[in-house]
């Protein structure tokens, strides 16, 4: 075991390999306040990557309703249960990660899903926590006593992947150029150790090819400077892909760094597992706080507070308008004179968006065309 730096935990931790951060790290930020569970992302991924034999059940991108939905079944509850009760102390993780809590014969604390666990990808959809006792019950207080939220998930292309750590054939590798974690399809023997070890259950076994497969981060798109399919097809424009730096190298003009490090409104999920996952969530402001604490750690209160204040910040508001405005990867952004501007890696401009759309008033009847106008946004 090596000692590696995990900034999600605010401390060093044990990992089977040395710390070796990629030159750039693929990352997605999701605003959970906006996701509508339309599953367009899931289908965008499915039609792009997993329409073949043995992939019928696979959703490399899935959207589940929290707290009850989970794909595979109860993955979160089962991993947390295996890990046991752990705690944070003053922003630092005082408990054990799945690597540190593992038996000497194992790489990680884990559970192995069966086929039945994968067969109900949307079980629990829209089930809310708390009971609705009266017909016509309404939600009277904040945060809501009855709540649910949607959690879209891809592989997190973790800085410390459990899938990679557990593979006895060393068939999994993390790319130096962008941090994307891939399973070498020519070397994998289908032992399924990655399926067992990944706590987020984002490595999946293909019973037809007898190899394990996982989200490829849409690397062919990323190599061309484009964001992944599940991101660019997002109906709610709730997600943005880019490259994240560790906090000690953070750049305020990098969209991902801005949201995660500067504004600190986007948080990793279940950071306590110890993988330094690289998908980040703006927490849902109306969901149960205790639950959010468990999922996002002690930073969640501050993140929600700062998110609420966001509308008063023209730079942040500008960045939010940029999200979903281009399929190209934004390496930096600038907000000036009411315009949010996104730039490519070489600094060339990609897209300009007005922070506030101009209001245009038109008559209800178009004289020239001789027809009535309808509002069709």
């Amino acid at each position, binding site marked *: *075991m090596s000692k590696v730096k995990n900034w999600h935990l605010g401390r060093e931790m044990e990992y*089977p390999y040395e710390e070796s951060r990629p030159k750039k790290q693929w990352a997605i930020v999701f605003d959970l306040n906006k996701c509508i569970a339309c599953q367009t992302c899931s289908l965008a991924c499915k039609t792009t990557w997993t*329409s*073949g*034999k*043995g*992939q*019928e*059940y696979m959703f490399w991108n899935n959207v589940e309703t929290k707290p009850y939905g989970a794909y595979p079944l109860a993955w979160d509850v089962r991993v947390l249960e295996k890990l046991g009760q752990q705690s944070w102390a003053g922003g630092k993780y005082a408990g054990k990660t799945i690597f540190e809590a593992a*038996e*000497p*014969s*194992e*790489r990680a604390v884990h559970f*192995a*899903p*069966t*086929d039945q*666990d*994968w067969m109900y990808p949307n079980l629990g959809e829209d089930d809310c926590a708390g009971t609705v006792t009266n017909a016509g019950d309404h939600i009277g207080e904040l945060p809501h006593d009855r709540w649910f939220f949607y959690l879209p998930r891809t592989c997190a292309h973790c800085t410390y992947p459990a899938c990679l750590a*557990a593979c*006895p*054939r*060393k068939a999994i590798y993390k790319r130096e150029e962008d941090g994307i974690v891939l399973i*070498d*399809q*020519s*070397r*994998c*023997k*289908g*032992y*399924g*150790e990655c*399926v067992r070890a990944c706590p987020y259950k984002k490595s999946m*076994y*293909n*019973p*037809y*090819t*007898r*190899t394990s*497969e996982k989200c490829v981060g849409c690397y062919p798109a990323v190599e061309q400077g484009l964001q992944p399919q599940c991101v660019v097809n997002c109906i709610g424009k709730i997600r943005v892909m880019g490259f994240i730096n560790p906090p000690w190298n953070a750049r305020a003009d990098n969209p991902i760094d801005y949201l995660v490090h500067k504004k600190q409104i986007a948080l990793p999920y279940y950071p306590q597992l110890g993988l330094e996952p690289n998908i980040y969530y703006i927490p849902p402001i109306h969901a149960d706080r205790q639950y959010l604490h468990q999922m996002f750690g002690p930073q969640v209160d501050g993140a929600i507070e700062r998110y609420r204040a966001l509308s008063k910040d023209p730079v942040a508001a500008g960045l939010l308008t940029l999200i979903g405005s281009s399929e190209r990867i934004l390496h930096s952004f600038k907000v000036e004179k009411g315009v949010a501007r996104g730039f490519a890696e070489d600094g060339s401009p990609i897209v300009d968006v007005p922070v506030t759309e101009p209001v245009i008033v038109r008559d209800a009847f178009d004289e020239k065309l001789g027809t009535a106008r309808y509002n069709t946004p």
Partner: protein
Amino acid sequence: MNLIKSTFGALAGVSLFCVTAEAEIVAKAVRGDVSKPQPAAAYWANAPVEKVSLIAQPMAIPRPAVALTPELRVQAVHDAKWLAVRLTWKDPEYSEAGHLGEFSDAVAMQFPVKSNESPPPIFMGAKDNPVHIFHWRAQYQRDQEKGKPEMTDLYPNLSVDMYPMEFKDPGTLGTSANSGREQFSPGRAEGNPQSYQKNGVDEIVAEGFSTSSVQEGHGSAASGTWAAGEWSVVIVRELNREGGSVLTVGGKTFMGFAVWQGGASEVGSRKCVTMAWTPVTLEGAQAAAR
């Protein structure tokens, strides 16, 4: 690191650095042909049974917590061209994998490649000092007997609108539809032997952990039967395997073994293994004439 040290420490007392085990396998010379794997052939009656001890694989993580298969019974015969080995062990359930999260029962035997006198480290050889492995799986045998399963064989109630490039009539696409289809099966597109039909047994050359590569077009064969909580598997191989291990009549070599109980989720490095090479003698040709 501490972990690895303590593993070594614990094992030093067990025979980690011994080359040979107590058992010794004598491959009986038989008249006739042993090139077909026959678990119930008459010649097994006269072949001595060696009991080989296995322990839970102790080196590579993940490893099994307990030794599910502490003993393997080994018999061997040869006909001066082929060596047949019958391997018998207790396994309470038959497992051939297929579904998600299921694993296959399996057994493997290995031979040194470079030298029949001083074999490489028993843990799958070492760099430039390979081992020659014969790996049988119930899953591979199923492939051979019934063909590689389609998804509807594994999940009869599965319903799929259509798979990409799979047409009843490919029309003008002709056979190009086939190669197009492979692109949607990454393992096959990459030519991974795991993704294609198996023939009972794989021949593998390895130079240490996580280095094994499957050899194409080999002549070995295997056949196993499971009954009443016991597997009996026969693997046959040519004595002289070019590019692999070479055995000689009247000569000696060594063998190592591994067993997986798929029903208990054993796969890959989760296996029971022999910790020392077992010496093997191929009885001289004149013995068969006696």
